[in-house]
């Protein structure tokens, strides 16, 4: 995987090669690839001259540093009680129907992954979700189908 090697190198150039650079580098990989593969972790370990176990241990601690393959767009639906009270379960059902996958799965074309997450900080405008880094709030089934339709068509 020469591309991963190149990416890790670029990120190390930008963030440095010490322990403190590890998190920014891993975050950089997720921004580009949506998840961190075993190969990527080994590359990071080599580049930063540390053990791969250390890289793995750090990456797996953080819920946004996915180490399993993810789609191009990772959807994280907030599951905190306040979003739940505003109809989160209905939104989840809409998302599952639209994407034809269940919670935790990735679509066959590797475009979408559907996950739940803890409080996103939009409790006054629930239900809320993130698609990669962008927040969508006050969701309704209609709004969700519009948003997902737009991603399917235009992105």
């Amino acid at each position, binding site marked *: 995987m020469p591309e991963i090697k190149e990416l890790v190198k670029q990120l190390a150039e930008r963030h440095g090669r*010490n*322990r*403190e*650079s*590890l*998190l*920014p580098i*891993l*975050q950089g990989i*997720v921004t580009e690839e949506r998840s961190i593969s075993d190969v990527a972790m080994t590359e990071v370990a080599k580049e930063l001259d540390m053990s791969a176990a250390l890289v793995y*241990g*750090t990456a797996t*601690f*953080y*819920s*946004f*540093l996915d180490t399993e393959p993810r789609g191009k767009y990772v959807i994280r639906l907030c*599951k*905190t*009680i*306040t979003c*739940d*009270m505003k109809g989160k379960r209905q939104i989840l059902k809409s998302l599952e129907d639209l994407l034809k996958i269940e919670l935790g799965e990735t679509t066959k074309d590797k475009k979408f992954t559907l996950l739940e*997450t*803890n*409080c*996103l*900080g*939009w*409790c*006054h*405008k*629930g239900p809320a979700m*993130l698609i990669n*880094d*962008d*927040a969508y709030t006050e969701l309704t089934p209609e709004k969700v189908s519009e948003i997902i339709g737009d991603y399917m068509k235009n992105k």
Partner: protein
Amino acid sequence: MPDKRLKRVDLIFSDESVCRDVLADSLKKSNDDILKGILDSGLRGRGGAGFPTGLKWKFTSQEKEEEKYVVCNADEGEPGTFKDREILTKVPLKVFSGMAICAKVIGAKKGFVYLRGEYQFLRKELNKALDNFHALVKELGFDFEIKIRMGSGAYVCGEESALFESMEGKRGEPRNKPPYPTISGFRNKPTVINNVETLVYSFMICRIGAKKFQELGTADSRGSKVFSISGDTPIAGIYELELGMSLEDFVEEFGDGDTKAVQVGGASGLCVPRKKFKDTIIGFEGVPTGGSMMLFNSSRSMYNVLKNYVEFFEEESCGQCTPCRVGCQQLKLGIESVKKGDKPASYLKTLQKLAETMKVTAKCGLGQSVANSFSSIVDNFNEEMIY
């Protein structure tokens, strides 16, 4: 009985254009004068724990180290809290200016904002605000630089020592305390770590003076506080209110007329049932909060609320210490078993004992505070846990 009534205040979100003058003024003042102001104001940390801000600054300023840091804790993860996002969106320059004043007092040249991964979308605007800020401090001839570090979706990183670990590129596992951050924080150097809101209040105290700030609130809870109000309320949102009001006043203003309970302080806070609204003061002498206020009306099952909280803790526990790691799992399994009828109702008492044990044995605030919501919900809504 509380003697304060609900009163809206406008300190935090007031005009940002004062930053230049206040900062220029403060940089000319002596460190002792600024410290005295913050100490006299009675300001306590707005993240939830409520440690006196002035003391934090004072202790750090007394350390004889070359390298010191100011860290802004923007890892707002407590369920039901969203005030820091609003503050960073609307008045970032006030946050940065608060950090600069702190840096002057303690003798730091570098500051960091640790921003939660969920708020990555704020980054662009924050960088712009940072550019303006850096131009301003340069113009004022003050040597101070702020960098932003991102979190990656771990609630426990809001705990100060876990946050330092994360900034150092490690797993966000809380450290043993002492030593406290004022002696050994980021990179094991003396560090002041303040919540976003605390930094803005520190800045505002430099602007309006300790006396004016002190006039607000009560003896234990000086000043005002930004509340994040959500749940069964027709007017969910962000409100800055004077501290010390009764929960009854609060519910009258924000409730939907059918409020049966308010969770004060998020998943790690206390659940107050209707019959106790009147005698509950919102503040450090009563029920403190980092800002999260979730209202529940009588259509809600408090079992579902508790289960949601316990699941949250089980997921977010860092797993480092046994009381929290195993305790959270057992609390979740326990309430499920009682609900299903696999365990007798009396088993809830055993679970409460477990939660109390976690309070005294868990390593950090996360595990220690599970008992707050657990016991207050089980005590006050016992029958809802069983039937």
